[in-house]
């Protein structure tokens, strides 16, 4: 089976996004979406997932995304929103089960339960399975959200800052899970804030600013001072050593004119 690569040729949303490609997020690797706040990272992810209307020319393998029926599109791609918190009184097991059942409605089968169990187990959620969602911590809730995505077994996973509300331990775990998903041949496209996490885990990067893509390519080409300093308008200290590349933000590069 050939692994489907996500290629974005064009994604335009009025006033917010004007990305012209081709941008490639190869299957089996993690592609990081980097850029300052308001760069259009969420908008791009939502446009790809079909949640936000956009003039879109993007393909997953040989399928044109805009041409896919809605149901099929939500089956092959799954968008994970930024950490939301609901007050729903649903058990963790129920929440993951319903993520699967919105995909394939009908009676709950033994196969469904096995898939839910597998997703829960891989995110170490089995001990929490009967806990109510409204009692989970932020990190636990994020794990449930990822389990909800995994149980659907999408070909491409789109994640919107999955690490933003998490402590360091949870951040690393989330990215390790994403690495495992990528190793299974999925396309993983993830919006990140943390350059060091991106340097550690990303294979490819798309650099976004003011709704445009400034640069895209293999991570080691993108994550260099020449690209990152103008992207975030900061001075950076970049260190290369045996452990990899680390970034240390030093100062704001130019003060934005104030009114």
């Amino acid at each position, binding site marked *: 089976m050939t692994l489907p690569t996500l290629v974005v040729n064009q994604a335009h949303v009025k006033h917010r996004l004007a990305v012209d490609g081709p941008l490639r997020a190869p299957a089996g690797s993690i592609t990081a979406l980097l850029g300052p706040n308001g760069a259009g990272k969420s908008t791009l992810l939502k446009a790809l997932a079909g949640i936000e209307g956009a003039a879109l020319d993007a393909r997953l393998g040989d399928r044109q995304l805009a041409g896919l029926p809605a149901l099929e599109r939500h089956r092959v791609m799954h968008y994970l929103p930024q950490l939301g918190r609901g007050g729903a009184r*649903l058990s963790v097991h129920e929440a993951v089960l319903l993520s699967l059942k919105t995909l394939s409605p009908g009676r709950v089968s033994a196969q469904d339960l096995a898939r839910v169990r597998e997703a829960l187990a891989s995110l170490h959620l089995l001990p929490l399975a009967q806990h109510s969602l409204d009692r989970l911590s932020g990190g636990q809730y994020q794990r449930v959200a990822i389990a909800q995505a995994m149980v659907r077994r999408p070909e491409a996973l789109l994640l919107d800052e999955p690490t933003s509300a998490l402590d360091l331990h949870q951040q690393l775990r989330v990215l390790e899970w994403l690495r495992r998903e990528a190793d299974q041949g999925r396309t993983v496209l993830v919006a990140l804030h943390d350059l060091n996490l991106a340097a550690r885990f990303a294979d490819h990067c798309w650099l976004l600013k003011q709704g445009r893509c400034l640069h895209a390519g293999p991570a080691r080409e993108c994550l260099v001072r020449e690209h990152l300093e103008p992207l975030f308008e900061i001075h950076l200290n970049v260190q290369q050593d045996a452990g990899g590349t680390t970034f240390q933000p030093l100062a704001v590069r130019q003060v934005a004119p104030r009114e």
Partner: protein
Amino acid sequence: MTADAAPLAPPATLADFRRHERRRRRWLWAGGAVLLLAGLADLLVGPGHYAYREVLLALWRPAEADPVLRITLWQIRLPTVLLAALSGAGLAVAGAQMQTVLDNPLADPFTLGLASAASFGAALAVVGGIALLPLEGALGAAGNAFVFSLLAALMVQLLGQRRGTSLEVLVLLGIATMFTFNALLGLLQYVASPDALQQLVFWTLGSLSRATPLKLAMIALVLVACLAVSQRLGWQLSALRLGDTQARAMGVRAARLRLGMLAAMALLTAVVVAAVGTIGFVGLVAPHMARLLVGDAQRHFLPLSALLGASLMCLADLVSKSALPGVVLPVGIITALTGLPIFFLLILRHRRLS
């Protein structure tokens, strides 16, 4: 609460899952038993003061009973109890689904103004003889009620879509809607004939005293249809509880689902209000009780809400008959007096959480 805190293993097999489900479903059986008891109690008590044994006998063997008792029981008390149960279930289902699709714990047909709008519409048909839909009699009243409750629901939907509309603002809008239609109802009262005035009091206070087979059939039909549709869309409706974006990411057409459910609930509210007038808070309280017992999963939550709503209404009817000796109070007054404290409690609790 304790059941949720215990770290139970997730169901490993289909048999385990079924066992889990059965445990939840036991609450439904309990709800059914409560409804039976409440309905029976409601049946036994009432003007006429017959001995309970006599009433039970007349229920069991109508042919052998005293004719007056037979007529009282079969033509007055039984239809009233049925109307109480059906309208209570209808209001509870409408409240439950409005809370689900609007993600608003304070929502119900009464607090969002749908009930007042519907009751004005129904009164317009009964007092003014104006039917907006080509229907007559009780159907005309229900049709008018539907038109107005649908309008109120659309207003709720439009405002709810706007950014930054908090849950409280939505309820404020509901209260404003209520004031509006109460003022219009007052206008109708002012111009109404003394005979029609009597009827208007009925709409404003809520009453179970005018049960007819047509009204009962109408509520039952719409209720069953709403339950069936909700059952079919159960997973999607539960997904809405996770938040809008999350639900849409799962492929749920959130906006369409929300609008469709609101319209269905407007219809349910309309047929109930056209039959019994404005009865508040049953639709608010019953779903909260159900949620506390079985959580938000639709397949348990909705039927239990219906059963509890029906039970509450039967109990309210019972209280309305026995609170003051010799007087049957309008049942809407009973539900308002008992429901309002709970409404206050919900508002305060919500403020603390947010």
